[in-house]
């Protein structure tokens, strides 16, 4: 039982990271109907920036804030400069452009920082926390905490600020929003910025676990896809629940199903994606879109 609870908690911690990245995917999907395949690698790049700041001697939380801000601006600029020209193009075109971004970020990171793995510090104490018989990693609990704080901030932003309302409106009904004087195109840019900021947090939370490496987000992005698919690409809440669900499932299956272990973890995510897409394409919380033909 102790092992079970421990696995669930550490599943929740990785799940929180998947949830952050999935939330970033969902945010862009809701606004533009596109999945950003470069999301994970943008996050990886932000984490490298954070590593540079830490090397320069900045304290952790200053680095954290700085990285999130830079990621936000970077995401905004990418939308304005790279995605804007293909706004409204066929989906395949936009997917290809985001794949282009993916390989560019990977190779630029490899170019600047080399392909050698680097350790990345955790802001949380190394000493594990004991509750009764059960031992929790402090980083795990910290990652869950950071994810929760971000979610609350995001919820408050969308629920109680005019800008948040404008962004929701732009995503739901671009034409009417434009008539109301909302600058829809800029709202999309803001969405990309926020998504990139979320990705940066996910990157900084996962890097102490998987180490920094230009390809570190490959598996995590697959899990984030699974999370967003399970929860539904149209639902932020779904992304969070999906992320936690995927994280916990991944850990439990890895522990208790011996033939899968850690070696087929990615296949589990693939299977989850395919099963959900077949059984309930809209995901658990997504709304089914009915299209007039």
């Amino acid at each position, binding site marked *: 039982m102790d092992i079970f609870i421990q696995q669930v908690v550490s599943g929740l911690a990785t799940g929180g990271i998947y949830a952050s990245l999935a939330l970033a995917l969902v945010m862009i999907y809701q606004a533009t109907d596109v999945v950003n395949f470069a999301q994970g690698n943008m996050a990886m790049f932000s984490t490298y920036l954070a590593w540079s700041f830490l090397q320069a001697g900045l304290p952790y939380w200053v680095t954290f804030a700085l990285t999130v801000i830079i990621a936000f601006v970077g995401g905004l600029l990418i939308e304005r400069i790279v995605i804007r020209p293909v706004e409204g193009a066929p989906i*395949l075109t936009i997917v290809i452009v985001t794949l*282009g971004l*993916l390989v560019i970020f990977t*190779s630029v990171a490899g*170019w600047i920082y080399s392909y050698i793995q680097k350790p990345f510090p955790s802001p949380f104490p190394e000493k594990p926390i004991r509750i009764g018989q059960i031992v929790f990693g402090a980083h795990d609990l910290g990652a869950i905490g950071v994810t929760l704080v971000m979610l609350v901030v995001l919820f408050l932003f969308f629920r109680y600020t005019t800008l948040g309302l404008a962004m929701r409106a732009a995503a739901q009904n671009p034409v009417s929003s434009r008539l109301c004087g909302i600058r829809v195109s800029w709202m999309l840019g803001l969405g990309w910025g926020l998504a990139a900021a979320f990705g940066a947090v996910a990157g900084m939370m996962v890097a102490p676990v998987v180490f920094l490496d230009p390809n570190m987000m490959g598996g995590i992005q697959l899990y984030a896809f699974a999370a967003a698919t399970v929860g539904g690409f149209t639902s932020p809440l779904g992304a969070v629940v999906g992320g936690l669900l995927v994280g916990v499932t991944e850990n439990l299956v890895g522990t208790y199903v011996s033939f899968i272990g850690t070696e087929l973890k990615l296949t589990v995510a*693939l299977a989850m*994606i395919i099963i959900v897409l077949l059984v309930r394409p809209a995901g658990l919380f997504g709304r089914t879109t009915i299209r007039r*033909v």
Partner: protein
Amino acid sequence: MAADSGAAAKAAEGGADAPAAARTAAAARSLRLGAVLVVLVLAAALPLFVSGFRLFQFTQVLIYAIALLGLNLLTGYNGQFSLGHGAFYGIGAYTSAIMVDRWGIGYGWTIPTAGLVCLIVGFLFGRPALRLEGLYLALATFSLALAVPQILKYFEDWTGGSQGIVLSKPKAPLHLPLTEDQWLYFLTLAVTIVLFVLAANLLGGRTGRAIVAIRDNHIAAEAMGVNNALYKSVTFGVSAAYTGIAGALSAIVVAYVAPDSFDVFLSITLLTGIVIGGFGTIAGPIYGALFIQFVPNWAQDISKAAPWAIFGLFLIGFMYVMPRGIAGFLQLVWIRLTRRAVSRSSNST
């Protein structure tokens, strides 16, 4: 090819009377045929001029061309995204390697077998993929590409785990006076020609029109009596079979397979190939194959990371300025040239 010249003829019709247009179309057709013949002769004579590693690279170009043609059938002609064709390439390569290394079967047999295995796997993957539209199919195939190296490593008894399988290069049969590289080049060239002719025939006929109709408007196609589900999953299977045959050839030619060479970046490379070459054309895969084989080689001199940066820039750049790739661009140039000729001839009459 017939479809291409048909398009040219249709475009030419706009500016001139019918006989002139027909004449231009006929001229275009014979010119095209001539060009194909010249390319074939050059390709057959290539081993006289280059040898060793250079020839090996051209063999690789042919292999890529087959894989790209497969991907183009699916994405370019049928309009189904696949960001995971590297997976089928890998399955083909491993089919061949396992048959040769573990079971001692002659390498020649492994090529059609790899095609058959991938046909079945592709068909089975294409079946559920029917329910996935656009973006979701991209997502599922991308996930497949991400997961494949791990799956290959898992079945260690067969695949040799992360060590991969080392094969030996086959010698030329019947005591032909050819080096191993030359023999493999001709073998690959023969397979390439057969597969390209088959694809051209398939696409030029009724089946091809059905495949394209589904891409352009699947509801209208259904209304015209095209069995969407069947055509889409069969196209998926055939496309996977082409890519699998390419994979099998690559296993034989490179004489080595390892799981990490079939990662998601291979799939992105293939996608880059058809973006550069041109969606929905037969010639596009050849241009694309030349690009993905030689450009990284040149870029490697700058930095280890440079090839990917260049791929990325080309992917984005082509989407902005040349969304139909090199083949589409050449077609446009050809139409411009012939249209002028047509209008001049119609002015003089």
